[in-house]
């Protein structure tokens, strides 16, 4: 996914040069199976609570 960077190189001050981008560590954790399995359950639980809590 290097295309944006190739273009950014020639376009500082463009609107998307001011976007934040994930660090390599962040990219690693997004693909780390262990952490993601934990997140899968944690997020499901959290979403369930948020959604079920909102109506009666």
């Amino acid at each position, binding site marked *: 996914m290097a295309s944006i960077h190739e273009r950014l190189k020639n376009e500082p001050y463009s609107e998307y040069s001011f976007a934040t981008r994930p660090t390599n560590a962040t990219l690693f954790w*997004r693909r780390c199976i262990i952490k993601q399995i934990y997140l899968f359950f944690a997020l499901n639980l*959290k979403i369930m609570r948020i959604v079920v809590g909102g109506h*009666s």
Partner: protein
Amino acid sequence: MSKVVVLGAGISGHTAALYLKKGLGKNHEVIVVSPNSNYQWVPSNIWVGVGLMEPNQVKFKLEPVYRRKGIVFKQALAKAIRPEGDSTSEKGFVEIEYVDEARRGQTEKVDYDFLVNATGPTLNFKATPGLGPDLYSNSVCTYDHAWHAWQNLKVAFEKMEAGVHQTFLIGTGHAMATCQGAAFEYALNIAFEVNKRGLHKFADIIWISNEYELGDFGMGGAYVKRGGYVTPTKVFTESILAEYGIRWIKRAGVYKVEPGKAYYELLDGTYHEQTFDFSMLIPGFAGAQIKAFNKKGEDITSTVFAANGMMKVDADYTPKPYEQWKSSDWPEIYQSPAYDNLYASGIAFAPPHGMSKPMESPNGTKIFPTPPRTGMPSGVIGKVVAQNVIHRIKTGRKDHPHKASMVRMGAACIVSAGYGFTKGQAATMTVSPIVPDWEKYPKYGRDIDKTVGVIGLAGHWMKLFMHYMFLYKAKAKFGWSLIPE
């Protein structure tokens, strides 16, 4: 015996019908009127649109499910509501016209004790000249459209493989379109497929949106916690686009599409063009354009429906400026103020106003997203309307013990890109409540502790999991009602 008629078999109507039948049992009649013989799990159309799923994987025939459950299904279009009946009938009824092969063109009067209008949106391609899969842009709003879009997308991929540069324009096709989330997801999926094929050097992917800032999503934006900071969805969304190599045009109202070219006006009043090889532009949404008549046969459509064809419910429709919008403007029980046995569920109800701040260009063009009401809230509203109708039928009382205001409801949004156990990645976002409430939450408009903004494999698994889970639920298989909306 009471008779409940549900118009529409989308997420909201189908959910309502299943709960109604479950709650009312064999002694009462539940009738579903829908022109489409299939149920479709709309969120997965994105995957159809990039060739990762076949239409068959996101839809199933409604009739067998309804037969099994004892729900009457009429594959027909609702044309008019006569809530007071007519000269020959005291009871309210709906005029329908069949669209299935056997009875195409036949009309029928379906009387009811309670009517749930869950007709969903009319895809208003006509509001933008040249827009739509029949003309010069693609759509992923239905599985048909999505499949058609994939056929065109494939051609673009083939061209890139032959070294021909392609420009992809994805976003909103009308100055007041909503459903940015779906279009956004489609843009990411195209970027993912482009990168997967190693074709990024030949692709210029452009996100075009009527949002004031990215990440508005018709919800007035939101804040999520990320990396120790409360981050506006603007920053979150721009980050995702930059990561996937997608450029963007914001504050844009597309007003015309020609072959290979979209015309748009920016909020600053300037006019521009953008050429493309492939485009997917979401149309404006309108209500189902059902007419309403009183007992004398006089047209009371404007009493029952708002100007856009969506049905008026227990909301405060007094026009007021953005600064005066209140959480109490929003409906709780989705009951028509005109007829107390009439309900609107899902996209069919008219919201009191948007969630995004109205913006107007110097030329007077309104450029901002109308409020989305897809997925989760539509399902919840369908269920709550069903519960209240069941309560009224069973007790004979007129109160509504069940409430589902979008000012209290939370929602999750999973924007997935890529596919597969280790390749997929999704941004999972939650907001609670859906409609910002600046009185209750003066800092961020919403409960910041109930927000999530996470990107990773887990979100993709959840999206896949929901695909199977919600289709299972919609098929009303064993234990379906235990699965939350």
